[in-house]
């Protein structure tokens, strides 16, 4: 099960939120924005739940591809 921590920690890094929100809020001019901050803003600042869900699923597919890629690499190594 050595691949699981690597994959989950990659997902964790993609979900970076609190650090960025408290330090820069995603600014200046979106230079430090992360996917989660964008989704959060769309949903809870602009109240556009449909768009936020679309963003969330795009984000999910991206992570899914990375996770599969990592999983394959790990498998080839062992």
């Amino acid at each position, binding site marked *: 099960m050595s691949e*699981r921590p690597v994959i*989950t920690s990659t*997902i964790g890094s993609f*979900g970076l939120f*609190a650090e960025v929100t408290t330090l820069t809020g995603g600014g200046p001019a979106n230079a430090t924005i992360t996917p989660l901050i964008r989704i*959060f803003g769309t*949903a809870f600042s602009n109240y556009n*739940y449909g768009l936020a869900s679309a963003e*969330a699923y795009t984000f*999910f597919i991206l992570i899914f591809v990375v996770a599969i890629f990592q999983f394959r690499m790990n498998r080839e190594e062992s």
Partner: protein
Amino acid sequence: MINFKKILVNTLLYSMLIGISLFMILPFVWMLSTSFKLQADVFGYPPALIPKSPTLKNYIYIFQNANMIRVLANTLFVSIAATLVSLFFTALGGYGFAKFEFPGKKALFAFLLATMVIPGAVMMVPTFVLMRTFGWIDTFWPLIIPGAANAFGIFFFRQYISSISDELLDAGRIDGASEFGIFWRIILPIISPGMTSLGLLFFMGAWNNYLGPLIYLKSPEKWTITLAINSLIGGAGLTYWGEQMAMSVVSLIPLVIIFLVFQRQFVEGITAGAVKG
């Protein structure tokens, strides 16, 4: 000759490790130091690790003006409730997957593992809409219930409970225990070391949760510690650094106490899980 080389390598290695350790611990020490500084001294030059004029003003402020007791009580309630509810349901789920045969078990378990790949952000909006339908906005329920049956916990307990021999459960059945009685009286005591370590992880997760309270808690008297700390960052440039650091220090105390109390079980539980996993 060889010894000399070894000493040299060791000296380099240790000084490097000590350097990295100091670098790691510096933010923590700096937080402690800033919490005793006056606002004017926070960015004083040269930077001083030991405050020029140490003060308890920041601590007094957070307890008198920032409603610290209430915030701590809220956070403690949410964290303890979330931990207990999660432990109960994940252990129950793990027991089911470990000791019962039912159609679709493999597929269901694979599906459960696959949900671990889904980042929380994807669930954020639908969960919010669901909680709003329940009328749970600005209550503590959304911080306790949705995470109650999380995939990692069920996976963890399935591995743990699989190592318990079936004879033990059969002995319980012969003595007339119900299936839930077996879970409550036989399984739970055996898996208590695992519960301690996973419970600590759950507790820390709930205690440090920022995104959840940010979405669900609106009124200041329901704030948890992470929101309260963040509220001291001024958007327009005035940030109460000393007060913020004092609050951070106070927020660490319960975690440190709990960790010190459960440290031994915590380490044992993690390594036990590692061997079985």
